[in-house]
């Protein structure tokens, strides 16, 4: 029965989940806003020069991305834990305390980024202002705070998982989240050797994004399918285990594709090329799995009539969430799979590494693989919190999904074109020097691509406003079936 998944009333874990989702949505907005600032600076280099330089806009853009996704992940786990384990989350009071500590720390870190920005070349800067390491710039004090918060979260997950029922989804999450928290430690040291620095830095960045986060997505996609279309747990969990095997099997050694040019030995060429070429496979599997299960479940329900599976006669009880989850399957395959694959081989990567190609892949992959499904979970949460039986599409939800998706895809295409110019002009023709770099940046195709990136970024931001409006008004909207 789908009904028991639908209500958040009375569950403290689900209430806590909504706190996490709310904060995540706010930071998501901040991510898009500072992304716009950075995009404007590509078109008008004088914009906020000396006040909020590109580096600072970008730090907030990418750090906000990571933070909102981590918040939404924690929220998703707190949301599904009572349903999966059959009991209330064990350390809910600690969970709530940690939420406030985490949120407050984020606000302090962002204010420091905005108003202090850089510091002298000594340890105080590393401890209190910035660590200056892409994606994990958070100062050392915040690192330790994040470790404490992550341990508290993992503790809650384990205590609840041990005490309650251990479904396949919970088991996968337990294993995955301990790896997720543990890997963060690999990014918490300083070394003068930049090759060693980058070697371990990728343990955090790659093994998060291309291993543990992907497995996390598999687990919540499984939960979402069971919740939204009443898919059979046994089938969904079997696919989940297959995905775990494929994702970890390709993703862990796929780390090698970051070890082509940082001073590491040549054998990483072969290892990186082979395993990262396998990385899209589970994404294809995930994609097939969503559509296959959907078709199969619908067929069963039609055959059996509306009784039994769906209490209302609707096969999908949350249209916007379902849209976002299907987009996840497409987006993950396209953004992470296709866009990732086409510059992953060392022969190609020698020229494409560190160009706008990477940026195109980054935008499409983070959106396709993570943003989509986390927004889907937000819709599942508003449905449950408001006791809605069938959550329907509204004008705002359709505008949101259309504008955000076309905006991000548009940015991805624009950045791909910009990357082409860089590869041909800056790298192949001119030889990657300082002058070659600016020759590439001045090309007409490049600068027009950057105009389009800004336009498409604006479309994405407007879509976000529709999304926020839709999520905020769902509770009072009379179109939904209660």
């Amino acid at each position, binding site marked *: 029965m789908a009904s028991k998944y639908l209500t958040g009333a009375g569950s403290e874990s689900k209430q806590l989940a909504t706190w996490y989702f709310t904060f995540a949505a706010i930071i998501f907005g901040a991510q898009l806003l500072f992304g716009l600032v950075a995009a404007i600076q590509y078109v008008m280099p004088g914009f906020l020069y000396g006040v909020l330089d*590109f580096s*600072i806009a970008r730090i907030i853009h990418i750090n906000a991305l990571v933070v909102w996704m981590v918040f939404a992940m924690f929220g998703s786990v707190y949301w599904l834990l009572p349903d999966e384990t059959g009991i209330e989350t064990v350390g809910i009071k600690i969970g709530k305390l940690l939420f406030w500590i985490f949120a407050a720390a984020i606000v302090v870190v962002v204010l420091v980024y905005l108003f202090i920005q850089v510091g002298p070349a000594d340890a105080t800067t590393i401890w209190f202002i910035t660590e*200056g390491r892409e994606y994990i710039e958070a100062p050392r004090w915040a690192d330790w705070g994040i470790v404490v918060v992550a341990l508290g979260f993992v503790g809650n997950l384990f205590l609840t998982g041990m005490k309650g029922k251990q479904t396949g989804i919970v088991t996968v999450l337990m294993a995955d989240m301990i790896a997720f928290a543990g890997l963060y430690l690999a990014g918490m040291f*300083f070394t003068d050797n930049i090759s060693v620095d980058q070697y371990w830095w990728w343990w955090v960045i790659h093994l998060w994004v291309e291993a543990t986060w992907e497995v996390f997505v598999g687990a919540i996609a499984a939960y979402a399918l069971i919740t939204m279309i009443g898919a059979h747990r046994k089938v969904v969990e079997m696919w989940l*285990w297959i995905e775990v095997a494929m994702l*970890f099997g390709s993703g862990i050694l796929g780390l090698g594709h970051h070890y082509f040019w940082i001073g590491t030995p040549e054998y990483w060429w072969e290892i990186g090329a082979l395993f990262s070429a396998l990385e899209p496979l589970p994404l294809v599997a995930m994609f097939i799995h969503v559509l296959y299960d959907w078709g199969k479940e619908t067929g069963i329900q039609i055959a059996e009539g509306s009784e039994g599976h769906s209490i209302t006669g609707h096969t999908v009880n949350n249209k916007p969430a379902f849209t976002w989850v299907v987009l996840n399957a497409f987006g993950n395959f396209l953004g992470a799979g296709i866009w990732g694959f086409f510059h992953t081989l060392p022969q190609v990567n020698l020229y494409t*590494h560190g160009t706008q190609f990477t940026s195109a892949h980054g935008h499409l992959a983070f959106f396709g693989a993570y943003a989509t499904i986390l927004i889907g979970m937000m819709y599942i949460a508003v449905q449950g919190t408001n006791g809605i039986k069938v959550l329907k599409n509204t004008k705002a939800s359709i505008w949101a999904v259309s504008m955000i998706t076309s905006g991000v895809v548009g940015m991805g295409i624009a950045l791909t074109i910009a990357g082409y110019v860089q590869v041909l002009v800056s790298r192949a023709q001119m*030889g990657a020097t300082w002058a070659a770099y600016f020759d590439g940046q001045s090309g007409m195709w490049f600068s027009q691509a950057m105009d389009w990136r800004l336009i498409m970024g604006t479309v994405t931001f407007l879509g976000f406003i529709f999304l926020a409006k839709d999520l905020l008004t769902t509770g009072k909207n009379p179109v939904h079936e209660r």
Partner: protein
Amino acid sequence: MANKSVWSDNRFWQRTATWVTGFASILLIWLTFDTSAQIAMGNDQDLQNKVTKRVPGPTVINYKITYEMSAKRGHEVPVIGEKEKFFGRDDYSEEEAGALLHLGKLGSQAKNCMDCHTLLGNGAYYAPDLTKAWLDPAWGPDGAMQALTGKSTKEEAMAEFLQHPDQYPTHARMMPDLGITAKEAKGLVAFLKHMSSIDTNGFPRNFGKIKGAVHGK
């Protein structure tokens, strides 16, 4: 599930997932030990004895570094040549050079270099890659930057630029003044020189080699 098949058995896939993950993790840890040994920083003795290290010791700043095609490896590799003055000296001790490199690496993080530039190809794409910046013809004797900054050596031109980047615009997209002191600038230049000596398996390809291609030379 009337027909019991191993292919639709959750326990089978769970075990598969565990074994595959375990195997991949162990392989990664094993490779990490090997790589760690290969990318550990060398020392002054290696440099004096002409022992090639993927990441040479900090005293590499006492030497001339070039980036040349290796027929054997099929791509460009850094070549450490004869002594070369760095801020007027070529006798930096292990400690002195190490302290400069430490200051420079710390400085590169304190000033968020990677959020505009790429280093070893990683970072942001708003400004040029710095992997081989030390070898960039722009800073050389015939390059524009020595004349622009009014300095007579590469390292002094770089240090001057880093302290007052907004006074030497090379493009509409200008580097902002990050409050870099003279001492920090010296460290940063040492860090850049050291980074250019790292063996990056030929990245970036053709660096600075095809200067005149676009003009048909």
